[in-house]
């Protein structure tokens, strides 16, 4: 049997505006979760290097526990498990203001924060100690060493893995459809439900994700090349 394509379902009726709303929600939730993930990643990454053991243990526990459990479980945990523990007022406010959106943002941000922490830590650890020593020998203060030597190198080393981790976050935002956040995959399914056109609807969603991911990866590869330090970073490809 031949399948009759009918691409017009993507722009007739409400489909177009659904896709657009889905894209906006995906970008909003990914953007906010990304900020949370980077903040948690920096804080926990830094805490794992402090000399006081209990603090280090807390940070290690956070990283290992949150990144080793499926994101889907965290989605359910934050959406169904956490709100009943909140005070009545906060719970009512939350369910009047898109609770599923905030739960998904927490789930994504806290999960990826643990993964981002590993990216940041390995970036800092890969800077040779001699860089630090050479900077001190040149008469820089500790603050200057960090501002002029360590941070600029670390940022460059972190760009490729942090980019791929950020793209993982963007793609993982699709898991939020399980707690009915109306993001891109959710809207794709909605178009399929209303028009019974699975292939057309899924193609539209897939193409949007591909364009986003390939676009961001291309821009970041250019950024990486532009700021590359000759002789320090060699990357195949």
């Amino acid at each position, binding site marked *: 049997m031949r399948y009759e394509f009918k691409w017009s379902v993507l722009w007739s009726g409400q489909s177009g505006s659904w896709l657009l709303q889905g894209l906006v929600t995906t970008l909003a939730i990914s953007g906010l979760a990304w900020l949370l993930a980077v903040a948690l990643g920096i804080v926990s990454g830094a805490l794992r290097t402090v000399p006081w053991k209990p603090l280090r243990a807390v940070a290690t526990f956070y990283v290992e*526990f949150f990144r*080793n459990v499926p994101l889907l479980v965290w989605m359910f945990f934050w959406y*169904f*498990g956490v709100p009943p523990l909140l005070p009545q007022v906060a719970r009512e406010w939350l369910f009047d203001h898109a609770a599923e959106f905030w739960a998904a943002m927490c789930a994504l941000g806290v999960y990826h924060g643990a993964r981002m922490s590993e990216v940041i830590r390995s970036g800092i650890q890969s800077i040779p100690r001699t860089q630090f020593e050479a900077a001190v020998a040149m008469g820089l203060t500790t603050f200057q060493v960090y501002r002029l030597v360590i941070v600029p190198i670390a940022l460059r080393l972190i760009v490729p893995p942090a980019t791929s981790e950020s793209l993982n976050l963007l*793609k993982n935002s699709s*898991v939020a459809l399980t707690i009915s956040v109306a993001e891109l*995959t959710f809207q794709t399914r909605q178009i399929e439900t209303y028009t019974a056109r*699975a292939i057309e609807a*899924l193609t539209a969603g897939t193409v949007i994700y591909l364009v986003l991911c390939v676009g961001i990866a291309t821009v970041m590869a250019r950024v990486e090349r532009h700021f590359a330090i000759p002789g320090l970073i060699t990357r195949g490809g």
Partner: protein
Amino acid sequence: MLDLAVIVNNFRFLVVQGLLGLGGFTGGTLRLAIPAIVLGFVLGIFVGVARLARARWIRLPATLYVEFFRGVPLVMVIFWIWFIIPQLLRLPIPEYGVALTAFVIFEAAYFGEIVRAGIQSVPRGQVEAATALGLTRAQALRFVVLPQAIRNMVPALVTQMIVLFKDTSLASIIGYVDLTKAAQIVNNREIRPFELYLFIAVVYFVFTYSMSRVAGRFERRLA
């Protein structure tokens, strides 16, 4: 506060069916994860080797395959397989088949990249030495390059296996009864989300964390 009775009373359902899929049940996280890891890795070896092929008509499709699946969410791939296979084969496929197909196809792209990086990490001199000894290209790959490459791949492979193990929870979206779905079913009856989801989080953690610890020891022994 924490009501652990809900865990104790439903332990058999959660662990025997949800996690292991034993005793005539049709679900199970491990029943899905183990074949998905094995088959995904096998397909990934072909993808990785194809990406390094000399012939462009082999290399290009493999590259497109990897780039495509790495740019798309897994949830999307699961929905694709879910809608497409019944259309193509004109017969209903159980959730298990849909989920396994989706995982193998999707994860092969990631395993393929690991295999490619592993092969590229073997110095060129090794291939040249093998050729000088009279081995064919296939023999050099089979006896010289792959054994060394696999050693270099171990850390990344284990990380990917852990990722795949966690990803199997997404099979619950299409109704496959794995550990996550089992917890959902129990929760619909008992309304104890905090205890149930925390419990399965701990179960997943025990598996993934011990996988990474075993891998760490294995890695040190190989090095």
